């Protein structure tokens, strides 16, 4: 592969100088703030982050340009829900072979793949993702996408976030850039309204945004674009005509929100639909922004009425769980993006937080967690499984809430665990969601399997049993 090698090396250098040229040193440092150390950790790559952030746009064909692994090992692993199109769940990749790479056929193959997808699946648009190898060998997906857009009269959007440029978080940001550059603002909506909003960074996992949407509808607020959860391409493309915006997952799309504010004067705030006060607060602030932008001021009043009604209802429903959960000790390891909102929600139902990770949180998020918990040493950065394992035992956690990746740490420690990341099966948003969360935690903690699995084996000598009992006490 020596001819390839020469080509590659040029491409690397071009890529490198272009990148460092296009960003100030500050921006670069921010991206590299937490570099991955070899042999100590595993986290998603930028491509992962970009795909996660865009894939729930449901009527788009997402085409991954690279060798098999990037897509083949990762497709069909997320629980976002769609109210209509299912195209986003079909996986497309150019699945490059050695021959494509050596012979320099990869761009041509990409173009053909775009045509095949257009002919076979009639998507609203095609998003093309670069990956490490295709970026490395210098494939110019911008050019290919441009040509395909012209030739097929179909939006073909390049997403430049090859894995090696950085973390999943950076990938989220690059996804936002792609939308800003190629999608948002390209279509004018028929009937823009005074109460149109955008929700950014909401993924509609397990369909949880549908627990919030009806609340907004009752207030006469229309979600023009929820990006990316359950979105359609046209909604995203016309999102620039909304009057206000809310970002939900603060690291994913906050830059996008800021730029949309600059470009189209759409004010935004960072909020959350997790927890009772979080939800109420979010509704109030949406109403507030809309009124400031010219919506009927009665919206504020109507919002207060709705909040009061809903809160009363939800507290009543939570009463049943309070005695069962009060004082139970929770360890949170969520990857950080939702930590403060979940922390808040759990404290609302009387649980005690014995630790929370903030490894992916923004500085503001960290401050929020700190203020809520009032104790700094409960915050921890990324932790090795072994450390997490001991922390669970040391702090006598009653349950761990985390993503699927760390579940076995809790389960092998014979401790209850609940999935609150992307693979979870329950919806936790809005007033409805907090009741569901309480119910699931209750079920997990009080499951009769725990005393059973902790029971010593019949053949274990009494001495060992005693020792363990002492350790656990």
């Amino acid at each position, binding site marked *: *592969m*020596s001819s*390839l090698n020469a080509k590659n090396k040029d491409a*690397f*250098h071009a*890529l*490198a100088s272009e990148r460092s040229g296009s960003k100030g040193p500050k921006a670069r440092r921010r991206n*590299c703030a937490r*570099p*991955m*150390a*070899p*042999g*100590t950790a*595993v*986290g*998603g*790559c930028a491509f*992962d982050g970009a795909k996660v952030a865009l894939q729930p746009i449901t009527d788009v064909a997402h*085409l991954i340009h*690279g*060798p*098999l*692994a*990037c*897509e*083949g*090992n*990762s*497709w*069909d*692993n997320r629980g976002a829900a769609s109210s209509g199109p299912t195209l986003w769940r*079909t*996986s*497309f*990749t*150019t*699945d490059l072979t*050695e021959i*494509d790479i050596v012979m320099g056929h990869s761009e041509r193959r990409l173009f*053909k*793949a775009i045509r*095949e*997808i257009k002919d076979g699946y009639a998507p609203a648009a095609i998003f093309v993702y670069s990956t490490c*190898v295709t970026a*490395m060998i210098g494939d110019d997906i911008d050019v290919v996408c441009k040509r395909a857009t012209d030739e097929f009269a179909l939006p073909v959007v390049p997403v430049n976030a090859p*894995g*090696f*440029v*950085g973390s999943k978080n950076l990938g989220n940001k690059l996804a936002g850039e792609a939308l800003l550059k190629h999608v948002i603002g390209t279509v004018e909506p028929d009937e823009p309204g005074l109460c149109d909003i955008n929700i950014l960074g909401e993924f509609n996992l397990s369909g949880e945004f549908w627990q919030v949407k009806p609340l907004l509808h009752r207030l006469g607020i229309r979600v023009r674009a929820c990006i990316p959860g359950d979105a359609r391409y046209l909604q995203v493309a016309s999102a620039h005509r909304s009057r206000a915006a809310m970002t939900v997952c603060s690291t994913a799309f906050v830059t996008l929100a800021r730029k949309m504010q600059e470009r189209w004067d759409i004010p935004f705030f960072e909020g959350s639909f997790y927890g009772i006060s979080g939800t109420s607060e979010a509704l109030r602030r949406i109403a507030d922004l809309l009124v400031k932008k010219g919506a009927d001021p009665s919206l504020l009043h109507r919002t207060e009425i709705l909040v009061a009604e809903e809160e009363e209802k939800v507290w009543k429903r939570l009463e049943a769980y309070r005695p069962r959960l009060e004082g139970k000790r929770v360890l949170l390891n969520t990857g950080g993006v939702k930590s403060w909102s979940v922390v808040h929600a759990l404290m609302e139902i009387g649980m005690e937080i014995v630790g929370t990770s903030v490894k992916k949180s923004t500085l503001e998020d960290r401050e929020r967690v700190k203020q809520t918990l009032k104790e700094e040493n409960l915050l921890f950065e990324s932790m*090795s*499984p*072994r450390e997490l394992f*001991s922390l669970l035992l040391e702090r006598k956690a009653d349950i761990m809430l985390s993503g*699927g*990746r760390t579940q*076995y*740490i809790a389960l*092998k*420690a014979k401790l209850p665990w609940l999935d609150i990341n992307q693979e979870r099966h329950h919806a936790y948003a809005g007033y409805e969601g907090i009741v569901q969360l309480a119910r699931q935690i209750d079920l997990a903690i009080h499951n009769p399997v725990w005393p059973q699995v902790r029971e010593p084996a019949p053949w274990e000598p009494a001495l060992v049993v005693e020792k363990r009992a002492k350790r656990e006490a």
Partner: protein
Amino acid sequence: MARVVSQTKSAAVNPLKSSQPLGAAFAFLGVDGAIPLLHGSQGCTSFALALLARHFNEAIPLQTTAMNEAAIIVGGADRLEEAILSLKARTRPRLIGICTTASVEARDEDVVGDVENIKRRRAIELVGTEVVVANTPDFDGAIEEGWSKAVTAVIEATARPDKQYRNPRKIAILPGWNLTVADIEHLRETAVSFGLDPVILPDVSGALDGSIPEEWMPITNGGTKLQEIRDLGATMQCIAIGEHMRRPAEALQRLTGVPYVLFRSLTGLENVDRFIRVLAAMSRKQTPLNVRRNRMQLQDAMLDGHSHMAGKKIAIASEPDQLFQLSNFFAAMGAEIAAAVTTTGTSKALEMVPAKTVKVGDLSDLESLAAMADLIVTHSHGREAARRLGVPLMRVGFPMFDRFGSQHKLTVLYRGTRDVIFDFANIIQANHPPNPGPLDSTDRRESQ
């Protein structure tokens, strides 16, 4: 003999394949005290890890060299060294199994040379830890080839080449990736019941069988011991299972002179009979009673099950050896292989698949070929296609993330074949209620 049809599309739609480095990592997980290290950007590892964890419902030790932009430009040797040393210091593994990925391979990096250098320079720090490299670019092969390359690499790096005393009771068994934890346990028990002493490489039955250690383990816990691999030369005979295990078996023979026999499949009466005959010959022992009993139970299951299977159209998609294993079995039960799709086209096993053609392709190919099938046989990703077509799905292979207990299912030898028949017949029955039984049919005739 099947004709192998290669891919003509430019896009893979709903991939059937999992990548080659994942296959290699999977194999390394079958060595005791090991940690697989993917050499490439971090995302590859994260995806492979998540997929393996979803399949096994287990924590999986897997590490990355986390190649970043700079490393992609200047090369990954430093990252590799850093990763190896840090892993060694923190987790004290007995084996670090390096699997290269597309990004290092496309740069044409000499990873084997890099590792040699690192080993030389860091000889003292690395005492007690073997470091092994499998070249597994993602743009080539799939699980099966990755698995085969990793086993070959372990043998080449650790098996002692000098002439050793051959223990007539000792045999080496090299199982393919498609054998489950239960299969491996059953193989071992069967060999032991013949009075043989098997070394199984890789042996995923230790680390991935769902047992709960007292302490948190950052490396594999259970599996083939390194010492056993070093001493492979002391075995009388090697048994390789699956065409893809020919490569490691040959490596062992080249190195130590231990001869091998290859079984393409251990599923189906005839295949198992042949295997049992080999065990009997090697051990010079009568076939134990429980094995004989198992054979009778299988015969009975074949008699009971065959009518449900006769003439049924099966659409199957898997890695070459598993495709051969299952299609060979289905055909032997009177079913028809209506569609066969596989991941890569190079395996010799493909020609032996009892179908007119074998398509190298993806799950959308399977879907377009399976419309008229009675049963789809593939991994969990096939669920959408099966739902769309309204054809029942029998889940096999990797990944299996929407069913529990895939590793505790038996698929080989008499008992495994019997279980597969039951599985198959039950799925068919649940979806196509059998013709009314004799009692019922008289009633019907009267009422008509």
